[in-house]
């Protein structure tokens, strides 16, 4: 039974053109899905093809996608961070706390990003220095970080952010283009270049495919992983700044369950959950697919919980269908 041994990672002996074709077809498949959803939405609701509505729809995914970019690198390197939503809660709480003392907007943003970096470094240190499995560590820190928010806030909430702070999450650059969209686009380019055009990016793939071989080829594996955790923390801090600015308030339950949507987005983007392969363009398209699905269903008055059925089915379906086709073809 060959699928019995699929738990291990393996590299093909040589890169065949067929493998490349399958790899290419993943992003192609995603684009087809995205276009299909776009057309279906446009037909189903007359309110869909409206620049302002579409602009609002981007809020559905821009914040999650910021984290998803960093998470993509982390997952390609064979690790995972489930504490990202909890980092948002803690960073948001830290900003809310600071805002009580009249800290202004740049200060608040620094505090949010700084909290994210610290949380990421804590995860990274536990995983790399103590050689612990990241899934357990981040399930633990997920409770810990959000738990600290609950200790600080209880059932209360922070409001009273300075007015200029709202610009990040609610402001527009030009016409319908929001500040968050600009951040999203910039980050897509930065992460795309980082993963696909730098030595660091190559190291991430190498670690994901075979950490031992990567170590022997001179890659400082723990350091790269540590940096990736800090990066994920930083992006979570950035998402916290955007989300807090957009909502204008902080509760300890802010962003509950967001980590699952981020992982869904990453996996939907064709990034192998076992590590070693995946692309940033795939992640970008997946962000649009998820944003279009939730927005389109929202226009049709489908409740959020039912939308989650579609997201869950999409996650399983997009991965299962190519495999099922391959199984049928083999017969």
């Amino acid at each position: 039974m060959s699928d019995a041994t699929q738990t291990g990672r393996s590299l093909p002996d040589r890169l065949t053109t067929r493998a490349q074709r399958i790899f290419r077809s993943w992003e192609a498949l995603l684009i087809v899905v995205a276009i299909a959803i776009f057309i279906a939405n446009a037909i189903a609701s007359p309110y869909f093809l409206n620049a302002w509505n579409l602009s609002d729809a981007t809020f559905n995914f821009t914040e999650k996608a910021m984290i998803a970019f960093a998470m993509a690198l982390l997952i390609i390197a064979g690790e995972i961070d489930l504490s990202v939503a909890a980092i948002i809660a803690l960073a948001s709480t830290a900003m809310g706390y600071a805002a009580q003392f009249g800290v202004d907007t740049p200060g608040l943003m620094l505090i949010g990003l700084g909290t994210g970096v610290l949380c990421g470094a804590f995860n990274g240190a536990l995983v790399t220095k103590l050689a612990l499995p990241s899934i357990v560590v981040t399930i633990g820190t997920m409770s810990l970080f959000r738990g600290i928010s609950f200790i600080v806030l209880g059932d209360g909430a922070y409001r009273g952010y300075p007015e200029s702070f709202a610009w990040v999450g609610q402001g527009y650059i030009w016409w319908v283009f929001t500040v968050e969209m600009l951040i999203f686009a910039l980050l897509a380019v930065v992460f795309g270049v980082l993963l696909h055009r730098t030595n660091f990016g190559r190291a991430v793939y190498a670690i994901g495919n075979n950490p031992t071989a990567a170590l022997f080829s001179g890659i400082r594996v723990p350091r790269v992983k540590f940096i990736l955790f800090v990066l994920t923390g930083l992006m979570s801090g950035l998402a916290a700044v955007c989300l807090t600015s957009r909502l204008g308030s902080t509760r300890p339950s802010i962003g509950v369950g967001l980590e699952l949507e981020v992982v869904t987005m990453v996996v939907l983007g064709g990034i192998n959950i076992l590590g070693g392969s995946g692309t940033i363009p795939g992640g970008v398209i997946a962000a649009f697919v998820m944003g279009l699905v939730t927005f389109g269903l929202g226009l049709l008055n489908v409740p959020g919980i039912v939308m989650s059925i579609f997201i869950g089915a999409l996650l399983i379906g997009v991965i299962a269908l190519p495999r099922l086709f391959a199984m049928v073809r083999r017969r």
Partner: protein
Amino acid sequence: MLRRFALSREAALLAALIALCLLIATRFSGFITPANLGRVFNDSAPLIILTLGQMIVIVTRCIDLSVAANLALCGMVAALLNVAFPGLPVIVIITAVVLLGGLLGAFNGILIWKVGIPPIVVTLGTLTIYRGIIFLISDGAWVNSHEMSAPFKALPRAVFLGLPVLSWCAIVCVAGFALMIARTPLGRSFFAVGGNPHAAVYTGINVGRTQFMAFTIAGALSGLTGYLWVSRYAVAYVDIAGGFELDVIAACVIGGISIAGGIGSVFGAVLGALFLGVIKNALPVVDISPFWQMAISGAAIIVAVILNSRSNRPKGRLILRTAGRKT
């Protein structure tokens, strides 16, 4: 054998659990009376049952994030069945939800076995799907206490030989698991698959099928717990046991079950669940705000995983250093 137990992870955890109880007793002496400890055990019973199911899943190198959603869906189905057919005997309802839970677990299992999707992806997907289905079948409405029939609500509370049926369910599950794991080929194959899947294939064990069985059993237990949960709290709604899957995984980790697979024991799983149960029950009586609970259980997970990794460290000389461990 006694010596081996004294040095084991379970003994250390048992000592920690007793120390924790004594520490709580210094603040509130009533905590360690048998009646109260019985209540704590009864409170922890759902967690114990789910932890057992999760244990075999983790031992086979998988993870099931959908257990709480499965529980909630089965609980809602049990409640709706009871409302629709008040005359239906409770045993029929229990059988139905155990089968349904097993089916939902088998759905996870079949996707992992036959389609080869990683368990974390499958159960992440089914977690949201199962929660969504609860909303669809209930229309988002609550099923309240007064709509449920008296026998439906009475069963988990009924006292038998000094303990509520809810506690007995946990005890029976623990005993059944101890037997299955020590005495049946299936129980042993869970550990064989987790310890070394390649070697397991060569000994004639079907790895995928074994993982499928683990998911099915875990699902059936979620179904049972679904009924127990809904009848005990006498309410069913979409979000019951929200986030409970993390408590279950936490209990497994604290109980010394290695997330890398192949290592774990029934006793450890029970102790891990009791540890969380004691903390949950103790916080209010020692005047700590319940808002501390989340941070404390998070810290407990991290400490437990650090301690476990120390004790699992391979002894002897390492010839080839591995750069990082697989999650």
